[in-house]
């Protein structure tokens, strides 16, 4: 079957890298087709159902049907383990709107120096660090655009690493804050640290068709039932659909892009019934999230591109990055607090909304160049009950019976756990990349992605510096049993790289507009373009860059170059 409609743009994926392109192109009057492999859910379909949402593969594929192979270093050898065996799931939300449906919405901009990591910071041996081909100033207008269109709430305070802004304040005030935020502020004041209100992609009040936050107390990992969270679906795709110029096709898995010479001619996709279709368009945009974007290009090899579409440079899949860092926590026991403070602490719903960027850059010793530090976000332990209960199962060894019940009541009714997350640069190296597995295929018979997850020791050292600082704050607040864990394991939900942008076609996949150097009508607009990721969560930058890419596509279409 052939689609009867002729599209200007076909987008593969519907998450944060896709939404801005669909939104802008549809608003500009171009015909847009969005192919999303997952199903289409709306806010009415989302419940705070830990079983369905967090403990089963409801919004992600079953790993025995679709999986990855993770290559890790074991006794000096890279050993690949299928995720169907390990259970280590690298899917993040295969539904319309992608993983932006399930994000926590901690939104930080990258800083000007993040765009010049190679030039501004101490050399790291064994790293593939490069400067970005664009500057912060070029992306700034798009960061601002995301604030208003996707909807970011917050409050600007001056601090050492506040990035230059073209507006004085966020368009939406901060969401309601928990009492512990003032305890945090007081501790930071005593320590002479600058507490920063964390910007959130969550609306504090109704805007247009979207409701304000309902403060259910569950945000990360859950689809938003009010529409306040700035998912690609809620904030952008709905508006794209309203133009009448955008078609979203769910349950449409794109298994390859077909090209002739230096142009993509169709996206070959499989529908729910297993039928194969060809979607044709003038321009193709891939935004399937970094691992899957590289996989699609590698699986689209042909005579012109024998090692993968747009991969004659050999760079597709290379220099994958994640967010390095770790986590930590401290416990507030109710017996240490007044009854009034205990009641305040027990309150569920309002956000902590605090972060520290005091050590975003760290002075070297004895005249050494500065090093990149990072961001620390503070939050409560996730309220998921089954996950919390499972932490009570071991007391040195597995316990059950009344001993377990005592531990459960202690964990749930005697304390509240305050946590932090550290975001540092993941140093790109030759040991972190995507390729195709030679043996394992998905349920459609397409080779799955194999991800090598080597990390640089440098990242652990920087993470530990930040963890020590974060622990200081928790102790000052009066928390007990303060601890942290820094790891080289990649967080599955913070993935980027694999299709670097740059000015040199020999060392990058995309040009500065995120168009393939080798394939004239192929763009990549998810986090794959990022050569380095900054020491912040990626999503705001992905949204902003996708708006920038959309402008480039509009310009190209308007000039009839395609």
């Amino acid at each position, binding site marked *: 079957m052939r689609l009867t409609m002729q599209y200007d743009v076909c987008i593969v994926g519907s998450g944060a890298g896709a939404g801005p392109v669909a939104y802008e192109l549809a608003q500009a009057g171009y015909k847009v087709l969005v192919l999303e492999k997952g199903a289409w859910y709306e806010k009415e379909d989302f419940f705070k159902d*830990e079983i369905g949402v967090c403990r089963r593969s409801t919004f992600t594929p079953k790993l025995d049907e679709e999986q990855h192979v993770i290559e890790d270093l074991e006794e000096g050898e890279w050993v690949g383990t299928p995720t169907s065996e390990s259970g280590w799931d690298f899917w993040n939300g295969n539904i319309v709107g992608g993983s932006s449906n399930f994000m926590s919405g901690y939104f930080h901009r990258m800083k000007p120096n993040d765009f010049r990591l190679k030039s501004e910071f101490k050399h790291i041996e064994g790293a593939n660090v490069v400067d970005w081909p664009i500057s912060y100033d070029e992306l700034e207008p798009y960061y601002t655009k995301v604030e208003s269109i996707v909807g970011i709430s917050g409050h600007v305070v001056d601090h050492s690493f506040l990035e230059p802004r073209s507006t004085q304040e966020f368009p939406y005030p901060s969401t309601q804050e928990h009492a512990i935020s003032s305890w945090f502020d007081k501790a930071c004041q005593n320590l002479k640290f600058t507490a920063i209100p964390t910007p959130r992609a969550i609306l504090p009040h109704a805007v247009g068709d979207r409701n304000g936050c309902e403060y259910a107390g569950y945000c990360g990992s859950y689809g938003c039932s009010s529409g306040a969270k700035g998912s690609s679906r809620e904030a952008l795709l709905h508006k794209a659909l309203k133009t009448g110029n955008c078609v979203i096709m769910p349950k449409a898995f794109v298994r390859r892009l077909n090209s002739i010479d230096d142009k993509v001619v169709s996206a070959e996709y499989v529908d729910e019934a297993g039928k194969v279709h060809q979607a044709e368009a003038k321009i193709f945009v891939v935004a399937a999230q970094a691992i899957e974007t590289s996989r699609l290009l590698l699986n689209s090899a042909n005579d012109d591109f024998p090692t993968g579409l747009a991969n004659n440079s050999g760079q597709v899949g290379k220099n994958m990055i994640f967010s390095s860092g770790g986590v930590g926590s401290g416990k507030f026991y109710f017996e240490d607090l007044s009854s009034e403070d205990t009641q305040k602490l027990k309150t569920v719903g309002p956000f902590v909304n605090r972060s520290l960027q005091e050590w975003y850059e760290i002075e070297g010793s004895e005249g050494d160049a500065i090093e990149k530090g990072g961001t620390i976000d503070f939050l409560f332990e996730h309220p998921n*009950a089954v996950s919390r209960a499972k932490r009570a199962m071991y007391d040195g060894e597995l316990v059950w019976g*009344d001993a377990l019940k005592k531990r459960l009541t202690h964990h749930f009714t005697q304390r509240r756990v305050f946590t932090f997350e550290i975001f540092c640069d993941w140093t790109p190296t030759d040991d972190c990349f995507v390729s195709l597995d030679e043996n394992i295929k998905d349920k459609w018979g397409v080779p799955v992605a194999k991800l090598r997850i080597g990390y640089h020791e440098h990242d652990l050292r920087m993470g530990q510096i930040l963890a020590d600082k974060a622990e200081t704050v928790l102790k000052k607040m009066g928390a007990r049993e303060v601890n942290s864990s820094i790891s080289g394991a990649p967080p599955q939900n913070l993935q980027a790289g694999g299709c670097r942008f740059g000015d040199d076609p020999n060392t990058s996949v995309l040009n500065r507009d995120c168009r393939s150097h080798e394939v004239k009508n192929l763009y990549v607009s998810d986090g794959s373009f990022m050569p380095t990721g900054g020491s912040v969560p990626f999503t705001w930058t992905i949204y902003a860059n996708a708006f920038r890419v959309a402008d480039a596509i509009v310009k190209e279409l308007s000039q009839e170059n395609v």
Partner: protein
Amino acid sequence: MTKISLSRRLLMGASLSVGLGLLLYVTDDTKGGLKLYSNKVQVLLHSAYHLFPSSALGPGAKEVNIAAYLSFVLQDKRIMKEDRERFLQGALWLEESAFEMYDKSFLNLTLMQKEELMQSIAAQRWGENFIYTSLGYIFEALLSAPAYGSNINEIGWKWLDHNPGFPQPMSQDETDYAV
């Protein structure tokens, strides 16, 4: 497919004996294995009652209606087949261990014998995995939305003073997420 879906809904409100009968009907297509399968499920249930007993400290697996929840788990297509089979295999091995140690079914052991047996298998990798998995499902039954058929009258949430957030699924259909 239709039979499974229909039976699953019936199970959520069914009594234990009726529920297990239906479970046999819808999940085991090897006629010769029917009796053994039933026994495995009984072992799963009674091991859950032992691992999370009814006591003055709080509700046990029985009060949270683990029977209905396990019926759901054993038919939940979102759980990988291998994981489900491993769980059932654990029940079989527990039963075999009971015969090896006491020459009788796990169901007929005294409280002390059950505890000795659990301590014994916990020292073995398969046994620790089985207990860990069982406790995980007990926690799910205890702390999941009542729409799943367990956590009757929110007994688990009330016991642990847990705020589950909102909205919650109000019916079995809403936990299917079928679109």
